């Protein structure tokens, strides 16, 4: 049944049943060992191809390498074991995989072996039904290791191939047939991973961990079939472990803390050993419990050492990768996104002055219709803009009380789906435009934008164009007046005096940001002077100064 000749370096052992076509119904420990070896060898051969499937640049950077190292650790445990008890062999494999688990897929692989070993415990050999049950236990165990299993990964492949084993074992006792069905299902399962995990589909790859599991199974199947499972280089020249430690770059380091519980702990000995592993070593305690703290380049070193002395608790590993962060800070800048290409919704704002036009355009407005107080655009002006913008969904921001109605008329005349968000001031329009959500539909956006517009208060400082008696105020033509949210509220002898008076009417101290849009009649120096005066009065609020370039209004001020 089995054949335990030493492998000749390039060949993953000789094959059972190669000479005869008799069915292969029992697998003992020595054959199991050869299967593990074949899986390892086949994985080594495909390591680079599996690495190339990586989607995430950071987590589990080299899936193929990580799985290979895990398999090597597993095989190392049984390499010199003659044992013919398959249960004991599986336990050793599981232990080796556990100790050597690298990366996410390595940890999952170790759990697969753990489940396998648990199911095969104490068995001398296994048959088809036992093998299928063991594979199912392997998948179940693997699933237990995570709260929210992600489908489309090695977990899915393990589960689906185990199900194929159960089905196959119901009709045949031939282990070769079972493994053939398992491997075939694993292959199909891997090809389905992109449909389960969108990130794979986006990257145009299959799951690397799942592919790794398939390759291990395929290696085993090839061995069972007597096909060659060759090693690229002798197994002895295992990959140099050191180069596979991306975490151990200079300047990173880990802050490692844990408590060792044991008996007759030699605190001096522990202190000396821990101190040799890193900096800032702190070792305190007594013969039964020792607290260890150390900064080490490899957190595993002190922990593995501690674990040899007793049981560990309160294990804390802190990553001190300050330098790397400096690098990341410089990397997070993203180029500006052209909103017009993103959104199906076009926006039209009414504004006067080059500065305000620019502001709206820079915020993604599809078109800006010139207009405002005393120069209301016609319905036709707005309609033209509506027909001129791309797309069927259009939002109009009139930004003036007198233009809301005009915008509504344009809406009724257009064939397009038009919504008017009745903004009555420029700052409201800006606020509304900022609230546009490229993913939401037209009606939702109209509602959200209107809400956003309500959250902002506006003061407009201008000159009275005629004498009027309103709100208990008598205003002469030519006087400087301040409107608060469209209502005449204050007057002043200068634009800045009126502005400060208007701010005094707006509970400004309750808001966070004051934005000052200065008009054509105001110079940049005057605006800065104005901003300084506002800051003096409202030191708790941030202030932004924008060259609005608008006609008629000295200042448009928003608080939000």
């Amino acid at each position, binding site marked *: 049944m089995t054949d335990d000749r030493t492998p000749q370096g390039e060949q993953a052992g000789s094959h059972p049943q190669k000479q005869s076509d008799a069915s292969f119904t029992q697998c003992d420990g020595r054959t199991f060992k050869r299967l593990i070896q074949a899986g390892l060898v086949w994985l080594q051969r495909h390591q680079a191809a599996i690495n190339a499937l990586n989607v995430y640049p950071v987590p589990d950077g080299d899936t193929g390498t990580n799985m290979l190292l895990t398999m090597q650790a597993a095989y190392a445990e049984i390499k010199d074991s003659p044992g013919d008890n398959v249960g004991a062999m599986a336990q050793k494999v599981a232990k080796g995989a556990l100790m050597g688990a*690298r990366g996410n897929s390595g940890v999952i692989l170790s759990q697969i072996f753990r489940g396998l070993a648990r199911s095969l415990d104490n068995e001398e050999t296994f048959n088809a039904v036992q093998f299928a049950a063991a594979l199912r236990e392997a998948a179940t165990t693997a699933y237990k*290791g995570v709260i929210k299993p992600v489908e489309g990964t090695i977990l899915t492949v393990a589960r689906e191939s185990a199900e194929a084993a159960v089905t196959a074992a119901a009709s045949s006792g031939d282990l070769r047939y079972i493994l053939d069905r398992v491997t075939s299902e694993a292959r199909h399962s891997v090809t389905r991973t992109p449909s389960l995990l969108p990130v794979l589909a986006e990257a145009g790859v299959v799951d690397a961990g799942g592919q790794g599991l398939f390759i291990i199974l395929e290696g085993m199947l090839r061995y069972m079939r007597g096909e060659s499972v060759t090693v690229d280089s002798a197994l002895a020249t295992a990959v140099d472990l050191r180069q596979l430690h991306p975490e151990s770059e200079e300047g990173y380091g880990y802050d490692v803390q844990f408590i060792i519980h044991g008996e007759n702990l030699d605190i001096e000995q522990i202190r000396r050993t821990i101190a040799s592993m890193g900096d800032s070593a702190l070792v305190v305690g007594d013969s039964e419990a020792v607290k260890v703290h150390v900064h080490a380049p490899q957190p595993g070193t002190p922990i593995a050492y501690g674990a040899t002395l007793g049981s560990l608790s309160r294990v804390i590993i802190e990553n001190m990768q300050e330098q790397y962060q400096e690098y990341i800070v410089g990397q*997070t800048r993203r180029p500006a996104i052209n909103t017009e290409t993103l959104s199906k919704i076009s926006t039209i704002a009414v504004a006067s002055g080059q500065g305000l036009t620019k502001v709206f355009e820079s915020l993604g407005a599809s078109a800006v219709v010139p207009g405002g107080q005393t120069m209301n655009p016609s319905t036709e002006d707005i309609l033209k803009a509506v027909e001129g913008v791309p797309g069927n969904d259009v939002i109009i921001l009139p930004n003036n009380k007198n233009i809301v109605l005009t915008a509504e008329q344009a809406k009724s005349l257009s064939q397009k789906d038009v919504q008017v968000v009745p903004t009555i001031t420029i700052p409201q329009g800006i606020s509304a435009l900022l609230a546009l959500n490229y993913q939401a539909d037209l009606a939702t956006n109209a509602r959200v934008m209107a809400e956003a517009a309500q959250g902002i208060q506006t003061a407009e400082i201008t000159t009275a164009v005629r004498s009027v008696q309103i709100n208990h105020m008598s205003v002469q033509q030519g006087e400087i007046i301040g409107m608060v949210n469209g209502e005449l509220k204050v007057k002043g002898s200068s634009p800045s005096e009126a502005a400060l008076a208007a701010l005094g009417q707006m509970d400004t101290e309750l808001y966070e940001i004051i934005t000052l849009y200065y008009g054509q009649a105001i110079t940049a120096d005057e605006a800065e002077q104005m901003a300084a005066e506002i800051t003096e009065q409202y030191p708790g609020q941030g202030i932004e100064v924008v060259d609005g370039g608008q006609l008629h209004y000295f200042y448009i001020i928003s608080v939000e």
Partner: protein
Amino acid sequence: MKDSGLGRIEISPHAIMDLASQVVLECYGVVNVASKDLASDIIEHLPFENRQRGVDVHIEDDRIIIDLYVVIEYGTRIITVARNIQSAVKYSLEKALGMPVAAVNVHVQDLRISAD
């Protein structure tokens, strides 16, 4: 926290906590999140709504520091699982938030021993 040029974007620590707990729950080897309150050292099996309890977020100079309190499956290689958690949480948060994650501190509060 950020000014993108179009106005401010604020991400509350609570939102970051939610995000981090989602990521950590998908990390292989994590079988629960733990209360960080060591006084009540009995690790409860928290209902999902409360899972942020196992996550602490601090923000210093626009850099995020995360503390995770987790229960790990016994029989996994704890150091590897912890390292995987660190890299997964760091990667996912930086990708989602565009803000650097300065540290992901993993506190392994307990191990869950599944019945054999």
